[in-house]
């Protein structure tokens, strides 16, 4: 009967990003968005950086063990997927009174498109402090090369 009162919408919870979302909805960005773009604050957050010889992807996935996160690269699309929380927390849920539930839980999957010309065979991923760093080396032929200028 009072189901509506208890309905919980984390997106509009105080302290969340509701203010930004409110403005985004009031004045939507007229520019073209990337086809794989997601609203800000989607879990896990992703940063991508580039050096001369590699592209580095940082996946901010706190609380996940290395084996719980799956990273795959197809063509130039990187997909991270996994599952967080749920199990043990749900069991003891009866005795708990929740005041805030802002952390994402459950299954997730995200894809980002990366620059072309990466070598998936030499890719490496490392997990530290809840951040997964994926290093994707560029193919040899795409690395910047120094061109010697010969004196005539």
């Amino acid at each position, binding site marked *: 009967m009072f189901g509506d009162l208890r309905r919980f919408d984390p997106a509009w919870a105080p302290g969340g990003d509701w203010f930004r979302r409110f403005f985004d909805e009031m004045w939507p960005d007229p520019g073209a968005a990337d086809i794989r773009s997601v609203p800000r604050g989607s879990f896990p*957050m992703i940063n*991508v950086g580039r050096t001369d010889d590699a592209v580095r992807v940082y996946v901010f996935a*706190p*609380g996940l*063990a290395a084996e719980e996160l799956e990273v795959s690269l197809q063509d130039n699309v990187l997909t991270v997927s996994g599952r967080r929380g749920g199990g043990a927390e749900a069991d003891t849920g009866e005795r708990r009174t929740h005041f805030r539930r*802002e952390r994402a839980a459950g299954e997730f999957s995200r894809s980002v498109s990366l620059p072309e010309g990466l070598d998936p065979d030499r890719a490496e991923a490392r997990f530290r*402090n809840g951040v997964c760093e994926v290093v994707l080396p560029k193919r040899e032929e795409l690395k910047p090369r120094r061109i010697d200028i010969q004196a005539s």
Partner: protein
Amino acid sequence: MSEVAKREENRAPTERRERRMDALLPPVDIYEEDNALHLIADMPGVQRDTLSIEVNDNVLSLEGEVALEVPEGLTSIYAEVRAQRFARRFTLSHEIDMDAIQASIDQGVVHLILPKKETHRPRRIDVKPA
């Protein structure tokens, strides 16, 4: 020339203020269990030594520096985490035993246990037979 200098001067304090404001709000779960409040915060990239938890005047502040090992010459092409630190503050109620607060961090997840004072725990009242 002098105008340029003046503008530079004006900009310095705002930059400093922006840097202080430029912190991410970590998402938290808060629940009550076993006579204690539990606070779980997602702070990826924060290590034990870059995390600071303070209780001052009933205000609990949680701050952590994001320590990423970024190679030199890295240019950002896409960034969702744009700040270097997480910060969030909560006011505590008087029933929390400030001296008994415990904190731990594992894989970027902070777990705080805020026990209630002995005097505020629920007591069972025996009903005597008449």
